[in-house]
């Protein structure tokens, strides 16, 4: 009995202690809990993340939008692959986005997102991303979070050293990974050496509206071009590319392209290239490439086939390109925020190599050459090298910067991120990743102004990190706090496809500009219907055009008769809503395409070819209101020889 009493008293005291502490915590934000990783990534219900992260969807072809530090997934933006959810590549409006010189391609391999910049600082206007397989660059408008432009890159194959953005978004670069015959032709593969070429493409970006155009290509020797980084600040005007396979092997590259002690970083002086262009030192080559543009005004895309490209030959244009010897098949190519150091990670080297831009300029001036390759001077390694981080780990890949004098490099083989100091090359800290990290991202970490608070590591292998989901598991990303001397692992979250690279940006630079709906008055879609009074159905031969509207919660018209087997029925559907977050969908039984998901004020088109007589229902796919289940309608389909006249109605009117 006495024991029970004591227990009650102890419990009482503990309860009071608990209440008093929780009382205090609700008042102020201090306390031991503050230091926990959980609290630092916790974004309370209804509150916003501090950063957007645009994470590549890799072989899904898309781009994922996450919040940091929570890791929450907000949206998947379809870019290079069709998406039934959003009707991307399925509706008539977006089909032209996936046109190429090879025809309509429903899939792509998305690799590296990179953000537009002004004066070397990310500005939140556009996100660019490359497609590796069928070489293309896409531009995503960050007011609508939609893909608005895709340009195909001719003479390229494996568009991997792409799409990095210069200080003022003058250019987005698209470098080929694979060398190919230029122009393409039927020839023996073992004639590779000396005959294949690597095209480095400079895509010009209109500073006002972001519109992309193919300005020029530099036809480089037939190496593999792996990664690229524009010069920053003092090195603005230059572009740096890592190369491998300077051996020019065309088979069993894992052995034959690893023979030489050093490959190159190719330094391209694009300001010089502009001079040569102005002086007319280019050749115009016949090519074919698609340029696809989506307009918000018409909610529709057009595809144009372009016919020529202007090409510069560096072997006869002095001062355009120099080679910087760099150890062992370098992969990552990263320039620090000051523009002084060009950091390269030799995949097969134990060291991370940093070249000096200042030394490079001096070496060029002093003609400190160590031979040449196809007429391009090779600078002496000693003349350009600034230093090396010695044996920091195994399999170095990519480097980003925090703006405080530190660099962070990923190590694929030893599964870790290593923090080191620029200039002294000393290792400060290392933290494991789970597992086999590829790229890493610090918001703004490849620009002049990094926002050095978080580091996102993107891993290639996941294994046992999450609940198993059969043989195929997602890839994982890990978030580290990099505000202190030592990095701290905060969070581990799943990603879509393979997140090769990501681009992060403070949410404040984007969220105020995010569009909430499209104004009906500004809708110039040729089949837009702006009021129920204007709805109609028009027959043109075997094509039947339904001018339809949708609003909570009905279609107008919702009863249609007079359609016949063998007709091509176009549902041109306009969402009349003018409020935030009120999309409506439409799906038609038996249509050989996806649903439509239509934003307020937008018009989209679904094509249906009925094959059987009957009365066929359609309905709204997006739960829009309490009466969403009532949002439905019927189309009567009669035999081909029927005399039923075309008619349409809503509520008998």
């Amino acid at each position, binding site marked *: 009995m006495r024991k029970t009493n004591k227990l009650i008293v102890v419990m009482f005291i503990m*309860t009071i202690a608990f*209440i008093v502490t929780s*009382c205090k915590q609700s008042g102020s934000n201090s306390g031991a809990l503050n230091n926990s990783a959980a609290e630092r990534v916790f974004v309370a219900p209804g509150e916003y993340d501090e950063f957007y992260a645009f994470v590549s969807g890799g072989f899904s072809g898309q781009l994922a939008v996450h919040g940091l530090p929570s890791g929450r997934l907000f949206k998947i933006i379809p870019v290079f692959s069709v998406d039934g959810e959003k009707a991307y590549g399925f509706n008539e409006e977006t089909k032209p986005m996936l046109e190429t010189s090879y025809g309509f391609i429903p899939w792509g391999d998305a690799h590296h997102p990179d953000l537009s910049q002004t004066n070397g600082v990310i500005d939140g206007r556009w996100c660019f991303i490359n497609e590796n397989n069928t070489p293309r660059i896409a531009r995503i408008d960050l007011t609508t979070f939609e893909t608005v432009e895709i340009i195909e890159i001719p003479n390229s194959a494996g568009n991997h050293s792409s799409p990095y953005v210069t200080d003022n978004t003058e250019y987005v670069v698209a470098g080929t990974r694979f060398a190919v015959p230029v122009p393409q032709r039927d020839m023996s593969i073992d004639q590779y050496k000396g005959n294949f070429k690597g095209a480095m493409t400079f895509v010009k970006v209109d500073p006002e509206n972001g519109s992309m155009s193919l300005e020029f290509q530099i036809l480089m020797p037939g190496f593999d071009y792996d990664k690229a980084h524009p010069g920053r600040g003092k090195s603005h005007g230059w572009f740096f590319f890592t190369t491998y396979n300077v051996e020019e092997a065309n088979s069993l590259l894992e052995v034959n392209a690893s023979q030489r002690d050093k490959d190159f970083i190719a330094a391209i002086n694009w300001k010089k290239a502009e001079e040569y262009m102005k002086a007319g030192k280019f050749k115009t080559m016949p090519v074919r490439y698609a340029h696809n543009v989506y307009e918000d005004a018409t909610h529709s895309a057009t595809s144009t086939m372009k016919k020529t490209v202007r090409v510069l030959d560096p072997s006869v244009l002095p001062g355009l390109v120099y080679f910087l010897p760099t150890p062992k098949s370098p992969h990552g190519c990263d320039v620090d925020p000051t523009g002084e150091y060009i950091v390269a990670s030799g995949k097969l080297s134990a060291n991370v190599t940093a070249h000096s831009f200042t030394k490079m300029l001096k070496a060029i001036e002093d003609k400190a050459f160590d031979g040449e390759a196809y007429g391009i001077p090779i600078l002496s390694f000693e003349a350009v090298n600034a230093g090396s981080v010695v044996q920091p780990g195994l399999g170095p890949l990519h480097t980003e910067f925090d703006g405080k004098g530190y660099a962070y490099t990923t190590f694929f083989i030893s599964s870790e991120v290593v923090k080191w100091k620029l200039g002294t090359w000393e290792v400060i800290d290392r933290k494991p990743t789970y597992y086999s990290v590829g790229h890493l991202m610090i918001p703004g970490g490849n620009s002049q102004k990094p926002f050095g608070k978080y580091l996102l590591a993107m891993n290639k292998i996941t294994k046992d990190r999450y609940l198993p989901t059969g043989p195929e598991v997602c890839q994982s990303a890990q978030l580290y706090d990099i505000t202190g001397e030592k990095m701290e692992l905060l969070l581990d979250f799943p990603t879509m496809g393979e997140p090769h690279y990501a681009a992060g940006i403070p949410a404040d630079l984007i969220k105020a500009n995010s569009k909430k709906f499209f104004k009906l008055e500004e809708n110039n879609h040729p089949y837009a219907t*702006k009021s129920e009074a204007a709805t109609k159905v028009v027959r043109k031969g075997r094509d039947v055009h339904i001018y339809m509207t949708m*609003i909570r919660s009905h279609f107008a018209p919702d009863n249609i008769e007079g359609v016949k087997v063998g007709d091509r029925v176009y549902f041109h559907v306009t969402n*009349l*809503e*003018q*409020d935030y977050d009120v999309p409506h969908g439409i799906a038609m039984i038996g249509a050989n395409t996806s649903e439509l998901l239509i934003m307020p004020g937008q018009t989209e088109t679904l094509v249906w070819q009925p094959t059987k007589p009957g009365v066929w229902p359609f309905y709204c796919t997006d739960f829009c209101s*309490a009466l969403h289940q009532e949002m439905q309608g019927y189309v009567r389909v009669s035999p081909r020889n029927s005399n039923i006249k075309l008619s349409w109605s809503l509520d008998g009117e």
Partner: protein
Amino acid sequence: MKRVVVLMMAGLFIIFLGCGGEKSADDQAKKIANPNGLTDFEIENGIGPVKEKIQLGEINVEMAKKGEETFIGKCAPCHKLDKRLVGPAQRYTADRRTPEYILNMILNPDEMTKRHPTGKKMLAEYLAPMTNMNLTLDQAKELLEYLRLVAKEGREKNIVADPVYRNQK
């Protein structure tokens, strides 16, 4: 022992009160009387951008004409004049509600159907929420003139319109 436990409980109760008791008794009383914290003006004239009584003159026929166009484009999908559809018949709205209420309902329907007692009652009746068409104040004023015009016409011609409530009183 029982007494000790009771005392402890009483003590705990006081601590709890102290923890949460920042609001004055006055506030509490107000909250009970008016659960949404609306002012008398808001009860009568709705919640939204129109916060003062407006002066109405004779019906402005020119504005009413523009209002009719907006009505056909933006309102007709859910509202007829004399027939209940998705929303209530609009023939006599201008007789039923104050002008300020009508403007606030057009311009701020989300809050009106969440916080205003009449707006909430209407949502319960029709279940489909009044949609925000993002009209300007000028467009809403033109609609108001149109609603005043059709109400006048209805009275003159003895037009019968569907009542507002079918499921409630």
